């Protein structure tokens, strides 16, 4: 994985650049000292590290605007960063780039129950939004596993999901408005407390754009009433096939659970050893199916799903009888990553999506890949929406293992695309899957995407080296290729 060649001339101008940044953000808002830059050298994808040229921590949108304008005019790259929890290297710094941290944008600005929305600064954590409204019985639906620390601005940049997005949607489906600063320093407001765009849906376009289009300075999200009841079923299967069939039958029966998660044998054992949630250990696959709604609805749906599970050959079915038990069912799933971290020195978390019906086949082929590469793999899986998280176990201290893990990861993602799925369901392309974009898209597809980038940031200063395998100049992309001036199908019916 190669990043764009750093510009030695920019690095050489560091003192002047730091002075110019400090003129905009005075005091401790600019970090330039090498030791102090160290904590910013990576995000959640810690295999890649690169200290930035400098870190700047603005506090106002006006400062962000002036910073971007400065960097744009002086040819300096900028990498935006929220809490740095990206698993795809979205916030990986550049040696010649300024890292723009939004951690000081940490205030909730408006809680509007009448319009059922919250306006927050981008550095507010995902969980803090729910905490701010839960006393009134509300919550913010998308709940990525990192919700304690990940920020709402980062969620917008990555279009984050979570275990409840089958029923309640991703960030993009829960977002109402944004304030965003463009690379040229212009501030635009998108959406608000109303629904839908008046013109192009730039709000939708920016969501999941991985910090390549603008820097978010304010976010408006909708909040939902917490359902009065939620219960979960813990269902064990002796084969992955029957677990996959159960998932298909639940959906086929018209039931959209609040969450539907699956774990394979290695993941079940790792989780049980780690936090003892009481998972059955004599099964190959475990489903957690959560039903939410009113008491009557949940009671009814629990019985319907139980019947489907039993008819699909489940070897164990348990329904949570208390809130504590429901939480315990989830505890193992939510701790799956650290649990796997305990059985292996390192693990590499993948994030492909597949059509649900291909699950058993994909898991079988993943086992083959595991044997071929000589690396173990544990699977946790957002079964409801086909989003796989294979965890490839490796030891970075063993020469060549990281490379082998990356190779196997790429093979898994290619497999996902081959069966009709995609490279990334919720973690983003970043640097990690950048060079695999060609597996899903041809050059024409990617050129159309890069021209979107050109509309926002023609010089390509914002987060370069992420998402696109090859960077084209906007002037080159903008050229119009006219092939011929004759209508090529004279026999076409014309009226």
């Amino acid at each position, binding site marked *: 994985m190669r990043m764009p060649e750093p510009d030695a001339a920019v690095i050489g101008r560091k003192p002047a650049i730091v002075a110019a940044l400090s003129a905009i953000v005075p005091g401790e808002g600019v970090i330039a000292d090498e030791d102090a830059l160290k904590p910013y050298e990576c995000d959640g994808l810690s295999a890649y590290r690169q200290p930035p040229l400098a870190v700047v921590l603005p506090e106002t949108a006006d400062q962000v605007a002036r910073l971007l304008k400065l960097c744009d005019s002086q040819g300096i790259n900028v990498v935006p960063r929220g809490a740095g929890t990206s698993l795809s290297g979205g916030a990986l710094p550049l040696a010649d780039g300024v890292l723009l941290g939004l951690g000081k944008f940490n205030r909730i600005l408006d809680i509007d129950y009448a319009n059922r929305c919250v306006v927050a600064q981008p550095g507010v954590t995902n969980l803090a939004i729910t905490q701010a409204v839960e006393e009134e019985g509300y919550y913010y639906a998308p709940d990525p596993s990192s919700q304690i620390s990940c920020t709402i601005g980062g969620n917008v940049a990555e279009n984050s999901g979570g275990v409840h997005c089958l029923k309640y949607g*991703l960030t993009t489906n829960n977002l109402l408005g944004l304030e965003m600063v463009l690379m040229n320093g212009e501030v635009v407001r998108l959406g608000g407390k109303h629904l839908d765009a008046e013109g192009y849906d730039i709000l939708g376009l920016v969501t999941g754009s991985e910090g390549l289009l603008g820097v978010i300075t304010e976010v408006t999200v909708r909040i939902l009433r917490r359902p009065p009841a939620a219960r979960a079923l813990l269902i064990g299967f002796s084969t992955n096939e029957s677990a996959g069939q159960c998932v298909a039958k639940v959906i086929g029966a018209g039931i959209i659970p609040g969450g539907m998660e699956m774990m394979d044998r290695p993941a079940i054992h790792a989780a049980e050893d780690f936090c003892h949630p009481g998972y059955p250990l004599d099964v190959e696959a475990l489903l957690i199916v959560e039903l939410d709604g009113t008491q009557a609805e949940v009671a009814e749906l629990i019985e319907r799903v139980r019947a489907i599970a039993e008819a699909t050959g489940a070897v164990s079915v348990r329904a949570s009888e208390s809130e504590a038990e429901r939480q315990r069912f989830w505890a193992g799933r939510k701790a799956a990553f650290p649990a796997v971290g305990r059985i292996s020195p390192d693990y590499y978390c993948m994030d492909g999506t597949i059509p649900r019906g291909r699950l058993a086949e994909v898991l079988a082929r993943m086992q083959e890949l595991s044997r071929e590469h000589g690396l173990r793999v544990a699977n946790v899986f957002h079964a409801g929406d086909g989003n796989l998280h294979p965890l490839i176990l490796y030891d970075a201290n063993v020469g060549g293992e990281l490379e082998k893990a990356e190779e196997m990861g790429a093979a898994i993602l290619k497999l996902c695309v081959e069966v009709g799925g995609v490279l990334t369901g919720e973690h983003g392309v970043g640097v990690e899957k950048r060079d695999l974009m060609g597996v899903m898209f041809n050059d024409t597809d990617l050129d159309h995407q890069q021209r979107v980038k050109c509309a926002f940031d023609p010089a390509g200063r914002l987060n370069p080296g992420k998402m696109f395998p090859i960077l084209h100049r906007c002037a080159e992309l903008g050229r119009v290729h006219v092939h011929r001036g004759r209508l090529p199908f004279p026999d076409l019916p014309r009226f």
Partner: protein
Amino acid sequence: MAETLRLANAEQVRQAVAWALAAGEPLEVVGGGSKPGLGRPVSARHRLDLGHLATIVSYEPEELVLTAGAGARLCDIHEALAARDQELAFEPPDLAPLLGGPPDAATIGGILACNLSGPRRIKAGAARDHFIGVKGVSGRGEAFKSGGRVVKNVTGYDMSKLLAGSHGTLAALTEVSVRVLPAAEATRTLLLLGLDDDAAVAALGRAARTPFEASGLAHLPAEVAALSSVPEVAAHRGAVTAIRLEGPRESVADRAQSLAREFSDLPSASLDREASRALWAEVRDAAPFAAWPDRVVWRLAVPPAAGAETVARIKAQVGCTALYDWAGGLIWLALDRGIEAAAESVRAGLGAPGGHALLVRARADVRRRVPVFQPQAPALAALSARIKDGFDPKRILNPGRMYEGV
């Protein structure tokens, strides 16, 4: 007279746009032609007719996904989905009666290109939220794709969102994939009777703040309710405020009881299956306003709690009749007979709460003169124009449909 190019497949669409690009001939992009006169008039000598890309390419009920040619008719899609107890959850409206288009002509590509959603938008999301994959031809005469056939996908920019609601100005859609969902087993509607607009929007907000998951929250003031074809609605001879519950049978019964208790302070009635369905179809299509073909119609999106006050501000300037959906967040406004557009009064009425107003139905000369889509701040307008430059630098596809020069 415009010449219509009827395309049979995506390759022909690409060739037609490439020809238009070379010849410098703008194209008016048309699906089923069910929404004539929506948007600014496009001056083009040729129409690009996508209505024959009408195949349902694949439908996998257990994957909750359907892929179809952009010209696939919505009525065919509804039928295929209903056979498996599924539906397009965003409840696409049929604006043909309102806009004078032919019946049963609306296409999936057309509804996505306009990002039109019905009453369930408040619970299930908009058309754009269900639009997961796309193939199309940009104004560069190049075929491209984005997204896929799975819901959870963050691979590259979400171009489906950008193309949804772009009214054919960025690309001619050739094939689309949409998320589908199980249709509700049961539905029931609670009617609150005789509320004025303020009280009604307050009641709708109150319902939205309960945990009973209403999937429709609408208000028909007396003169609109009187136009309803649902006898149970028209018979009340007054305003009707409607709250819809959908879901598993037991759950609907249970929530309906709780909701009735919540509103036991107000006179109420309830609608059963067929009557409920008919009422929500009317709300979805703004059908009462189809009865007044000579009146100008606006569609406003506002913060829901500001619905009634927005209408009051507009009424102080210009005579009009309102129909509220989305808990007050969507307002259909029919201006009194003889008023041309009153764009400034309508948009001034949005006031501090904000939102936007679309001129849905007006004479072509009026739509040429008056900003049909909400005018944007300069930086945002310039950004939109640059996005257009990327897809359609020579202004071949529906030029000026949304904004002049875009």
